[in-house]
């Protein structure tokens, strides 16, 4: 204890239990961690916050919040394993962008297809972000590299894609004819481009790959 030349009764330190309550209250309400020194300054003469801290640290062990040391100061903090309670998750469903849908459609109808081929078919460049997004959604994945100069990577649709769209395989995608029949395709195809079966003529060169690909499935 401290030097008590003064009237001892007047400066008698509060009981240990009382000191614990004080430390509890001060640490609870403080906006910052508090050092032992500051605790002692704020508590009545003769208090020993260090002992109270020890007791409290044990007391709150395993509770919803704990007494933790931050530098040379003390603070109550939420138990780390309960941090998830401090989050509120909301899921927002958004429509895929037009660029992403078109890219996805091209991959689905033309797989395996390289980025350059997608750009050629769409007529505009395909941003890295769009492909990343589709990969992240687990709707497209990287396929084998193509045996052409530069050995570009190809893209394929995934099982997840088939599941989402209720397809057994990418072959089940409605063909051009059906699209037309469904009124989704108007007859404004450029002259000289006949619709032959499932695919257009110009995709013939892809056919080999595609067959291979479908056989794999």
């Amino acid at each position: 204890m401290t030097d008590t030349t003064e009237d001892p009764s007047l400066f008698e330190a509060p009981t240990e239990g009382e000191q614990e309550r004080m430390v509890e209250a001060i640490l609870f309400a403080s906006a910052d961690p508090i050092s032992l020194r500051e605790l002692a300054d704020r508590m009545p003469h003769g208090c020993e916050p260090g002992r109270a801290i020890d007791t409290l640290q044990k007391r709150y062990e395993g509770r919803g919040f704990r007494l933790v040391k931050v530098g040379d100061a003390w603070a109550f903090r939420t138990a780390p394993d309960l941090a998830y309670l401090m989050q509120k998750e909301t899921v927002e469903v958004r429509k895929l962008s037009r660029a992403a849908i078109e890219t996805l459609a091209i991959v689905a109808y033309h797989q395996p297809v390289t980025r350059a081929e997608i750009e050629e078919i769409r007529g505009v460049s395909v941003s890295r972000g769009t492909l990343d997004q589709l990969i992240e959604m687990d709707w497209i994945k990287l396929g084998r590299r193509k045996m052409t100069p530069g050995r570009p990577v190809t893209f394929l649709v995934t099982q997840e894609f088939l599941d989402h769209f209720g397809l057994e395989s990418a072959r089940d995608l409605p063909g051009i004819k059906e699209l037309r029949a469904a009124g989704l395709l108007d007859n404004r195809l450029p002259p000289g481009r006949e619709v032959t079966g499932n695919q257009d003529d110009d995709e013939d060169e892809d056919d080999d790959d595609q067959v291979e690909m479908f056989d794999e499935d």
Partner: protein
Amino acid sequence: MSDLFEEDKMSVSDRIAAEALIVDVGSFEGPLDLLLTLARTQKVDLRQISMLALAEQYLAFVEKARELRLELAADYLVMASWLAFLKSRLLLPPDPTEDGPSGEELAAHLAFQLERLQAMRDSAAKLMARDQKGRDFFVRGIPEDVERVRTVRYTATLLDLMQGYARIRTRDDFRPFVFDREHVDTLERALERMRPLIGYAREWTQLAQYMPDGWEQDKMRTRSSTAATFAAALELAKEGRIDIRQGETFAPIQIRRKNRTDD
């Protein structure tokens, strides 16, 4: 005469109190407040107060205020005339031919109003005397905000997919499969080219300098890369990384690095 009589009835301290009331007239919160203050000078329980005496006190107060040419708000005068009416009702024997509440009923209601106001004042005092948040008890000093984790899930339907594909296949500017990409500069490429360079553009520099080397030789390439470079410049401006200016229509476009610390 009656004024004198009133004054005589008052003790010296009452009279001083009455004078103080007059001087303080601005501090009353309306006639009911004044009545309550006057009632307290009767030094009896509010329930035993003489409404007649109170009415007379009030009327005397208003009279005194008039003598001193103090401006009294209209509602004090309305109350005065009502109290004069109450007084007459209380003093005169009830007129059986007249309808309406008796003097006693009116007095009882006034007593109720005074008691109610007093009760609310006492309650307000008790309320304010309670332990208050931020003064007597305290909230958690380091609250943790509930973090809203928003996950965006993208979705599309088979119809979207088919419409998307159909859209590509029927585009008016349907492109041949063997499209010459060699002469196309894309926004992405232009951005890739410009990003590492703009850091050096402390001064205004011509946008044209950022076109790929040698592309100005070919008309098609020039057109494509002009568009791509310009789009890239817009993108960079949107990101707040550069400023763009053009002296006049068709003048060369210039860009300059934006110094973030400036703004």
